[in-house]
């Protein structure tokens, strides 16, 4: 953990911890400390006369826990789909087990012990037996813990009131987000949450993002450093939590929060308007998504569909590859929500810093130059075709397109296209309906592919430029290395030339081009990309209104003239020094 050192210029608070920003925004409220630890269980010796009452108490608690699980399951189903609801299915069956009550009743009767102890004891026995028998169950004992906590809560008279105590507007501080907790949190008007542990793929994060709640994870010991009722500021942009801040800090954050809310509402009226320049040039403005649950943000922010759905999170954090059916359901759901707008699904861009368990790769000295994305897919065609079949099947509405990442040249592309054809033949054989005319596009992020963009464009329906990787590879500078970070700063003229070349090559072949990297969301670059004749921009949903505002307040003519000027510069510094004041002057309120 890093405790931010408190310099005079930095926010002053009794405790300031820095973690991983998981969901953006600022929340100000009181701490609600939620402990994930199982309640304390004491063994009590009962008299024989007390036994029947104890059994009745147990039955009631189990029944109440069952009802609670059904309720949570319905919420999970509604908000997060089948995969989330399945977690509760297992919990339900554990409590429904025909052996459960008889065993517990026997334990209570024979030993004259309290129901709490009997339940706790039985769960412990199951878990230890499972662990003894096989190691592959170890990650599953959380199911038993979750069930135990739930039943004990009812036995100990909490009656599920524990979360109702949540004051409206609380910032929930917890060790980790159990899936069941995340669903429950969503029912209450909480303002945000902070955790000691937990990864970005956890379900709570997805729910936080799709509900616009700030969240900070990985604060290591936040549960030990604050008390219930403490005043707290949660900064989901920077990944900070400030406990009991001083008045000056508090008022600074209140102003920042007000500004954010105001900016959001000011841009709200743009939602249903097209991203069209004053002289009538339309840009397709789409949203990048990482999780299916974020799809409602697309419409809310006025994006025209999904320009990039990253499928990596379907693979990460699970022991096996997601099944074809699970993928199908996910893609189909997004396509349905986004229609009539398109949804561009990028096939797995794994490797580099994202290695799931189902891809057996060893450590590599240069992972970003190594075995990743399409390279893995071409070597593991079964894994790849499973995803392709799911996409092809999901495209019943006809608005899904396939995007192939990390293509370095025409030979790789041809092999990938052949596998797509093979996947179609497999679906025909399996008699599963699919869309044979699903469009395919290529991600241009390897400079070699940028140079071959004309020949690549002849084989596909569209190109999408991944500016982050394209810049890193073109400048030969590692994104994670601070000593060479200056090479990646700003808009590099070499990269702008590559982009222009790709756009021109594609247009000559009658193929449209988009940008889905960070440059698309860089407000300094928007006019340039418009002037370079980009057809589509895909950005994080939250960025959509700002980019739309710039586009609607310019003309294609202005943008072209700006490109002409900027292309004459020799360094990123010169470009920046010209663009910054220019954009600031033109769009005062956005660059305040």
């Amino acid at each position: 953990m890093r405790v931010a050192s408190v310099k005079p210029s930095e926010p002053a608070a009794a405790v300031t911890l820095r973690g991983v920003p998981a969901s953006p925004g600022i929340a100000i409220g009181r701490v609600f400390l939620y402990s994930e630890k199982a309640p304390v269980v004491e063994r009590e010796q009962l008299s024989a006369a007390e036994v029947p009452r104890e059994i009745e108490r147990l039955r009631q608690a189990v029944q109440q826990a069952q009802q609670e699980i059904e309720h949570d399951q319905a919420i999970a189903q509604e908000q997060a789909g089948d995969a989330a609801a399945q977690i509760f299915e297992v919990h339900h069956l554990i409590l429904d087990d025909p052996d459960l009550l008889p065993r517990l009743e026997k334990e209570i009767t024979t030993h004259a012990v309290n129901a709490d102890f009997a339940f706790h004891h039985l769960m412990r026995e199951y878990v230890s037996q499972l662990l003894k028998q096989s190691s592959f169950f170890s990650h599953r004992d959380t199911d038993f813990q979750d069930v135990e906590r739930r039943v004990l809560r009812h036995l100990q008279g909490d009656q599920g009131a524990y979360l109702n105590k949540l004051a409206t507007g609380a910032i929930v501080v917890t060790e980790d987000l159990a899936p069941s907790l995340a669903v429950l949190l969503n029912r209450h008007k909480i303002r945000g949450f902070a955790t000691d542990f937990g990864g970005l793929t956890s379900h709570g994060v997805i729910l936080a993002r799709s509900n616009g709640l700030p969240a900070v994870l990985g604060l290591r010991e936040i549960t030990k450093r604050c008390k219930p009722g403490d005043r707290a500021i949660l900064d989901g942009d920077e990944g900070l939590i400030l406990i009991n801040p001083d008045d000056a800090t508090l008022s600074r954050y209140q102003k920042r929060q007000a500004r954010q809310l105001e900016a959001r509402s000011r841009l709200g009226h743009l939602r249903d308007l097209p991203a069209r320049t004053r002289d009538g040039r339309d840009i397709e403005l789409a949203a990048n998504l990482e999780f299916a649950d974020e799809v409602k943000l697309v419409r809310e922010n006025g994006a025209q569909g999904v320009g990039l759905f990253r499928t990596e999170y379907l693979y990460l954090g699970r022991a096996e590859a997601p099944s074809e059916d699970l993928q199908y359901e996910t893609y189909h759901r997004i396509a349905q929500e986004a229609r009539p707008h398109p949804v561009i699904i990028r096939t797995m861009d794994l490797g580099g810093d994202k290695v799931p368990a189902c891809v057996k790769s060893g450590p590599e000295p240069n992972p970003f130059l190594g075995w990743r994305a399409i390279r893995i897919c071409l070597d593991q065609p079964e894994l790849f075709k499973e995803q392709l079949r799911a996409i092809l099947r999901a495209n019943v509405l006809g608005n899904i397109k396939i995007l192939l990442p990390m293509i370095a040249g025409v030979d790789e592309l041809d092999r990938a296209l052949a596998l797509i054809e093979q996947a179609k033949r497999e679906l025909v054989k399996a008699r599963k309906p699919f869309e044979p005319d699903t469009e395919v596009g290529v991600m241009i992020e390897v400079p070699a592919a940028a140079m071959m963009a004309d020949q690549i464009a002849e084989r596909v329906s569209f190109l999408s430029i991944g500016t982050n990787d394209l810049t890193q590879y073109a400048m030969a500078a590692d994104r994670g290395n601070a000593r060479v970070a200056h090479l990646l700063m700003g808009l590099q003229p070499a990269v702008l030339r590559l982009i222009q070349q790709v756009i021109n090559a594609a247009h000559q072949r009658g193929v449209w081009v988009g940008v889905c990297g960070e440059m698309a969301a860089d407000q300094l670059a928007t006019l340039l990309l418009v002037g370079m004749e980009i057809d589509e921009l895909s950005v994080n949903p939250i960025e959509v209104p700002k980019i739309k505002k710039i586009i609607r307040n310019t003309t294609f003519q202005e943008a072209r003239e700006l490109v002409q000027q900027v292309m004459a510069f020799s360094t990123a510094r010169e470009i920046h020094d010209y663009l910054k004041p220019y954009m600031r002057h033109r769009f005062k309120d956005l660059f305040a």
Partner: protein
Amino acid sequence: MLEKKVRVQNKLGLHARPAALLVKTANKFKSDVFLTRESQVVNGKSIMGVMMLAANHGSEITLSVKGEDEEAALAELTRLFDNKFGEQ
């Protein structure tokens, strides 16, 4: 009573999710369902029992079904194993 030997073909074995699927399916039928692995016999309608089998990938299980709808039950349960419980 009907009996049939099946093999666990999904990579992760009979962990919680496939166990849940199996138990749910077994519970649709009136017949009694038992699973035997090596010398261990468990109730196929008990998720605890099925998970206690700790049947990993490749293990052989004998399904025993007894009751008025035993044929349909055995067919549907066998299909679950053959379809790898919808997993890999």
